[in-house]
């Protein structure tokens, strides 16, 4: 008579590493891991050895040496006497500026285009499809160059503003000059008492928020709809203007004026920054538009229909019902688009915008010959920027995502 017993517990034998499917994959993974480590060690060792033999030591001393070149856009003070390290910082800030501006405008363009791609209006829908396809399928470098060359050829040179009968004129009561070298804007000059004006401005912004909250509460509690647009606008402008008048214009404007070869005074936004910014936003905007469209289509049609049945207008359906739900689908791919903008901003050198790649990875690298050090540092900087963007966007994603209870 046979009885059912527990199967005999097999002891581990070495051959099982190959013969037993439970262990076999582990064996191969281990072998692969050892091979990868050995290869990396070999390549790294080869590099170090060759460097040592060529008398090239990895050294970052060059960052403290005098740079000797000038940079056209300086968020922090810098001249040719400063160090390569400072030049790299200027480049880093320039990268951050264009990446930040690009992310904002690309998002705005993308959301608008994405929503309009689903418009019931045939023409609007087709125009947006055309926009998305044409921008998404041509390399961004080409767009940067096209936009830049259109800009330098279409906008007037500063020379055109000169003379008794200039062929070009400034905009908005001679306060803004658009040239092919950049846009010159009035710059606020902070006189005595300007702190008070700024304080009033901040207070009015807070006021607008409080007012809107009150209006919302009224709507929810009592069903009364208070108009918010015009009062907000009034709150935004009137207190500041009053403060300016009462205090005797502590905040004045410095207007750009044509002096010598260029406009001087005011704030300059370089043509290269505008071209790069515009090209990056419009290019990435096309990708974001597709993400937004995907997000909207992911929201069940029933939601739209239910909102419509409640009597909401199409604009409100989109803003209050569809987009908040679509965001959960949109945000994760949006993060990678933001990373793309940051990385694509390294094409800045094509239009002479001195970003991190242009300074540290360009002139510094070529003048010092420290290619390995510069490129490693460059990689580190981009890695840090990208990981930071990911980190912040992931926090935002976590606050937006569906909370399962």
């Amino acid at each position, binding site marked *: 008579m046979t009885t059912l017993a527990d199967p005999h517990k097999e002891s581990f034998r070495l051959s099982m590493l190959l013969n037993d499917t439970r262990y076999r994959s582990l064996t191969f993974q281990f072998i692969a891991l050892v091979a990868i480590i050995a290869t990396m060690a070999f390549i790294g060792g*080869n590099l170090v050895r060759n460097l040592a033999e060529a008398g090239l030591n990895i050294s970052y001393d060059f960052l403290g040496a005098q740079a000797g070149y000038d940079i056209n856009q300086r968020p922090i003070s810098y001249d040719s006497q400063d160090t390569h390290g400072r030049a790299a910082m200027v480049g880093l800030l320039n990268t951050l500026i264009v990446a930040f501006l690009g992310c904002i405008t690309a998002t705005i363009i993308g959301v608008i285009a994405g929503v309009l791609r689903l418009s019931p209006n045939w023409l609007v829908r087709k125009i947006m499809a055309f926009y998305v396809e044409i921008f998404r399928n041509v390399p961004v470098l080409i767009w940067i*160059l096209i936009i830049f*060359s259109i800009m330098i050829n279409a906008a007037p040179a500063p020379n055109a503003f000169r003379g008794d009968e200039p062929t070009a004129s400034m905009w908005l009561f001679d306060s803004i000059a658009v040239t092919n070298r950049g846009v010159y804007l009035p710059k606020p000059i902070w006189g005595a008492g300007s702190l008070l004006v700024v304080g009033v401005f901040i207070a009015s912004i807070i006021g607008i928020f409080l007012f809107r909250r009150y209006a919302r509460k009224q709507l929810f509690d009592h069903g009364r709809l208070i108009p918010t647009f015009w009062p907000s606008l009034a709150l935004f402008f009137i207190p500041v203007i009053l403060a300016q008048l009462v205090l005797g214009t502590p905040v004045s404007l410095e207007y750009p004026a044509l002096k010598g070869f260029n406009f001087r005074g005011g704030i300059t936004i370089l043509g290269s920054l505008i071209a790069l910014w515009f090209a990056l936003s419009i290019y990435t905007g096309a990708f974001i538009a597709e993400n937004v469209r995907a997000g909207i289509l992911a929201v069940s049609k029933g939601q739209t229909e239910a909102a419509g049945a409640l009597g909401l207008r199409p604009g409100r359906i989109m803003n209050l019902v569809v987009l908040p739900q679509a965001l959960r689908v949109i945000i994760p791919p949006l993060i990678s688009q933001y990373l793309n903008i940051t990385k694509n901003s390294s094409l800045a050198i094509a239009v002479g915008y001195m970003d991190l790649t242009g300074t540290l990875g360009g002139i510094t690298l070529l003048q010092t010959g420290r290619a390995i050090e510069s490129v490693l540092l460059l990689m580190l900087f981009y890695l840090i920027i990208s990981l930071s963007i990911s980190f912040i966007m992931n926090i935002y994603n976590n606050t937006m995502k569906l909370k399962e209870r």
Partner: protein
Amino acid sequence: MLNQGSIWRITLTFQCRFGLIQAHRGEKPPLVSLPAFTRPEKPSRKGVDHQEEVNMKKSVFLGALTVAGIIAGGASAATLDEVKARGKLNCGVTTGVPGFAEPDASGVWQGFDVAVCRAVAAAVLGDGNAVEFVPTTGKTRFTALASGEIDLLARNTTWTFSRDVDLKFEFTGVNYYDGQGFMVPKELGVASAKDLDGATVCIQTGTTTELNLADFFRANSISYEPVPIETGAEAVQQYIAGACDVYTTDASALAAQRANFEDPSAHVLLPEIVSKEPLGPLVRHGDNEWADIARWTLNALITAEELGVTSVNLEELSAGTDNPEINRLLGTEGELGSMLGLDAGWAKAALGVAGNYGEIFEQNIGAATPIGLARGLNAQWTDGGLIYSPPFR
């Protein structure tokens, strides 16, 4: 106008650095010679290789790869043999500077630097057309040379200490004495570079230009807005559109690019020359025989002008003359050719392509051409210039 260089720059410069490392390392061969980086290894290094192998015996794995590396390294020969075996000279030139190196309407490269390539090709291979022209940008040129992609770089390259010593290249002479100049539209009414306070200046990056510029403006305490641009063509585009007031690069390149403008007379070169830019052909460190060939081919062109050997009387003079130096140059006397490892008629072949230095100059960039450069510093030393060749003896 599209510049691929900007995209590939990091890759290339990285490669460049590795290329340099491989190209200029001391006596020991690399553990593994990557194909792109291999360069001629002398047979005499075998002893060192063996020592290397012994050192590496600690690790069988690494040892095996070392042997592979040695075999790969030993397979390549000296540049001269490589060129002869290939039947073509790989010569690095610009991506297009009128007068210096530019393909003509039928796609044939023409120009002052191109003539140097052709002369070397003729000296080595007997055929001035046996040249593969490799267009290089300011940033890719050293990579191309260090990695062995080209045998000779004749591309408006300034001979500087750091390029010669640190980047480990061998300049084989000067074929054009240049200096950094400024070009402005005539209508600006600027007479001197010192009047350029506040001007926007277009610069070609990847060169010594931006440093010279910064120094000049600082020394004169005037301000400027730099616009760094990757290639000459893009810089010209911006300059013509008025996006910058001034365009600065080597004076010869300014004159050359101005010749292609719609109205060259509307632009002037300012009198200030802010730097010394001796331009010349260069080769890699380490292959002195090849450097000698490049150096003495250029010297042959220069000497020929000095001695009055031209493309017209070349055949006649090569039959033998009373002047021993001409005879030595043209190979009817002495053993100069075989000392270089070339035929006796090497210099005759080099001169047969486009004549002597003076003829090449006049034909490509001289006063009668659209470029219209005067000889100036580039006249023979006998005419008060700096062009001077060591004697052929």
